[in-house]
């Protein structure tokens, strides 16, 4: 946990959920030097702030290998954007490929880790992150389905529950799947969990949280990861 990841305020029960930055920093701890990592738009992108000092190669599905941080007025290059269409910098050693080569790299298993957000994650690794409805409005899918099946590991980073307090970790997903049996680990504001052969296994919890409290906020049985 780095100094730049500000703590979230403690809850009434004395539990101190991790902030988004803290969760991202917690995830970043688990990325070894040398991995090639694709970060989804939004929450996942925060992870890139917490790998300083290690060489981790960030891939962007629009054909960048070796993405740096967001561009500033001084470093801006109009022809260089990330998957969220924000202007970014390159690091030394970066390279550019076209879209078919970029997704060849993704689908071909050459990305060590993909980190995405999700609406729901199921105990068997199913997850849903691309649409909340197939009938109401027009969904967009982007590269999520390719990343989900192609990366060597798929980790999800998200809030543990929805804004109205419902669990997002479930026995089965209700929403349309992005990919079946794809998620290997989940980082939330409350816990770090592996998707094991028997379901969710708790690796780590936010300070002050008990297994019972975590279970109450989770829609599938939890067990501690055997260490």
């Amino acid at each position, binding site marked *: 946990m780095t100094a730049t990841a500000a703590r979230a305020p403690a809850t009434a029960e004395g539990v101190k959920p991790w902030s988004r930055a803290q969760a991202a920093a917690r995830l970043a701890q688990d990325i070894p030097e040398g991995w090639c990592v694709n970060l989804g738009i939004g929450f996942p992108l925060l992870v890139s702030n917490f790998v300083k000092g290690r060489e981790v190669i960030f891939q962007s599905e*629009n054909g960048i290998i070796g993405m740096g941080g967001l561009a500033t007025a001084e470093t*801006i290059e109009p022809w260089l954007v990330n998957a969220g269409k924000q202007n970014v910098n390159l690091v030394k050693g970066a390279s550019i490929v076209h879209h078919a080569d970029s997704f060849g790299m993704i689908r071909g298993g050459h990305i060590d880790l993909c980190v995405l957000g999700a609406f729901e994650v199921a105990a068997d690794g199913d997850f849903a992150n691309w649409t909340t409805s197939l009938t109401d409005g027009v969904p967009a*899918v982007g590269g999520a389905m*390719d990343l989900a099946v192609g990366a060597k590991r798929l980790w999800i980073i998200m809030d543990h529950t929805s804004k109205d307090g419902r669990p997002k970790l479930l026995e089965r997903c209700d929403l349309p799947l992005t990919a079946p049996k794809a998620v290997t680990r989940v980082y939330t504001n409350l816990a770090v969990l592996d998707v094991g052969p028997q379901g969710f296994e708790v690796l780590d919890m936010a300070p002050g949280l008990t297994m019972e409290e975590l279970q109450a906020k989770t829609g599938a049985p939890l067990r501690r990861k055997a260490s």
Partner: protein
Amino acid sequence: MIDKRVKSIAEAMQGIKDGSTVMFGGFGAVGHPAHLIDGLIEQGAKDLTLVGNNAGSGRVEPLVRLLAAGRVRKIICSFPRSAGSVVFDELHKAGKLELELVPQGTLAERIRAAGAGIPAFYTPTAYGTALAEGKEVREINGRHYLLEHAIRADVALVEAYQADRWGNLTYKLSGRNFNPIMAMAASLTIVQSQHMVELGDIGPEDVHTPGVFVQRVVHVPYGGPASNLATAG
């Protein structure tokens, strides 16, 4: 002498027929041939099928104006809905614009396949999801895959950074994106290029798209895509 340069966007767009399938490069504004799409609006072809990553945003950009003008029957893309994709949303809800939603990597591979003479291939992407509906499933070495078909186009609209009279192209940084594979996948590939260079100025190892794939090049030194310094997640 081979000379694929044309003098104007109007000349570049000549002969595009009603009912054509038209690919356009770009990932957002970067590498997007906006001036050629403007030219397509002028040119008048209708009942088009478009193939590209996005469906535009706002109401001003050429892609959106082409949609708003009712000239597009169908769009094949991965990310039609985004902040500001109001025109696409309206047309689609009104049943005036058909959508074929394709995962981004499958879209890229289907385009590449067309250019490379591969009529169909299997991919793991979207297996077990709603986007697999109606698609053939095949198990290969214990894993499930979908059969996906090549997407060919009548016309590809491409933005390059440099071009020579043979149609050899380079792209700048992430402006490369879909452009090289679309250039391969169409019968008529039309390029707007920031810079025109002499034959031989692009080194043989530095050509991103060999001119063999290109039919027309028009010089459009517009200066580059708008920047987006927003830091919002």
